[in-house]
């Protein structure tokens, strides 16, 4: 799976979104799409498991998880990809 496919799969399983993941664009606001702050914690945990890394303290903020694009940037930054 590509990075994007993995992110979308994690969001589908843990994001508790009000819309199908397939309908999300790269910049769609995930919180606007119904992801709660609780769900974002689960998304984060699942991402860390899927990509085998830990987000740094400074990345633990809402903006890191606000869109698929933002998540990809964070994941690539932390995994050196």
């Amino acid at each position, binding site marked *: 799976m590509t990075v994007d496919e993995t992110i979308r799969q994690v969001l589908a399983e843990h994001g508790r*979104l*009000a819309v199908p993941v397939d309908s999300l664009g790269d910049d769609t606001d995930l*919180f*606007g*799409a*119904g*992801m*709660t*702050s*609780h769900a974002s*914690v689960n998304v*984060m*945990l699942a991402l860390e498991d899927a990509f085998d890394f*830990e*987000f*740094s*303290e*400074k990345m*633990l*903020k*809402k903006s890191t998880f606000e869109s698929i694009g933002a998540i990809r940037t964070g994941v690539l930054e932390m995994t050196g990809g």
Partner: protein
Amino acid sequence: MTASNVKPMTRAGEVASRMAAIADEVAGPAADDVDAAARFPTETIDALKAEGLLAALVPIEFGGGGASLEEVSRGLVALGRRCASSAMVVAMHHIQVACLVRHGRNEVLQAYLQELAEHQYLLASATTEVGTGGDVRSSICALEVTDGRFRVEKQAPVISYADDADAVLVTARRTADSPESDQVIVLCRPPGLELEQVGEWNALGFRGTCSTGFILRATGDAGEVLDEPYADISTRTMLPMAHLLWSSVWLGIASDAVDLARRFVQSEARRKPGTMPPAALRLADVTVVHQQFVDMVQSSLARYAAAGTDADRLSSIGFGVGMNALKVSSSTLVVDIVRECMLICGLASYRLDTPYSLGRHLRDAMGAALMVNNDRIMANNAQMLLVLRGE
């Protein structure tokens, strides 16, 4: 509005001392009646309005007092000592004011802030909703905005002192199509505000807050919707402010209980000079705990002040965990301290007709853990701790 409605304004530096004076002169003498009748503390709120104290947190350039949160906190401790219901009303009001000050950026809301300072409006809050199970971060009701006007109807299980407030800040879904978590907060006020009371408020404590349920229907200018998402306003302002100012009120209750306990022990000591009163050691113990409480509130105020308006810092997990910990600690400590003080004063505190009676203190204190239930707050912290880094 006529010029005669314009109130003199107490400025920063004098806010805490004026609140303390009103606590002693007005709130204290009325407290038993407010409690017995479960009525709104009209005389106290009127006294605060007469000195411009409802706009203490409004910046001076908007006609307010320009006071710091720390100063308002000290004023609330003083008020909480005399009448916890009055103090809780004032705390809840200031939390709403702070949301407008920090997040009400558009012209409509900035003009309202000036009006609030000028006429000393009292703000209430409608964040909970029937059907959401107490989760204030989700809404069922939704805003409908057409032609620059909003419309909302909300079944609110609690709107404290709504009948005596001049406006209510209401959370709702952004649009009818928005998910439950995509919330905004909107200022609802007359003439577009209609409140239909549901039920009565006959509770163990905080009886003067008049926290009845309402069906709220409101219309107004779409400019009265705060621009930022409620999720951000809640994280950065409403939640930390609530925990800081509620804790100040509870510290007031605990402080008065410790004062009474100390006076009780001193009166025992006077009766038999040279003999240590039996409860003196327990007084020393409770004074240690009380000091922890004082220092915790002060350090939390300092932490919030240091974060300023830095969105990343205010929305960091460590900051959120810390503010939740403050609420859980202070709501637990207030009960512990009042109970210890009852052991010190003995039956004199259990009776309702002595100068050492702690009945109202105990009843009010028991509400602290329930208003936003500590179990819910601990569940939030448990969730956040799954991802907190130890740096």
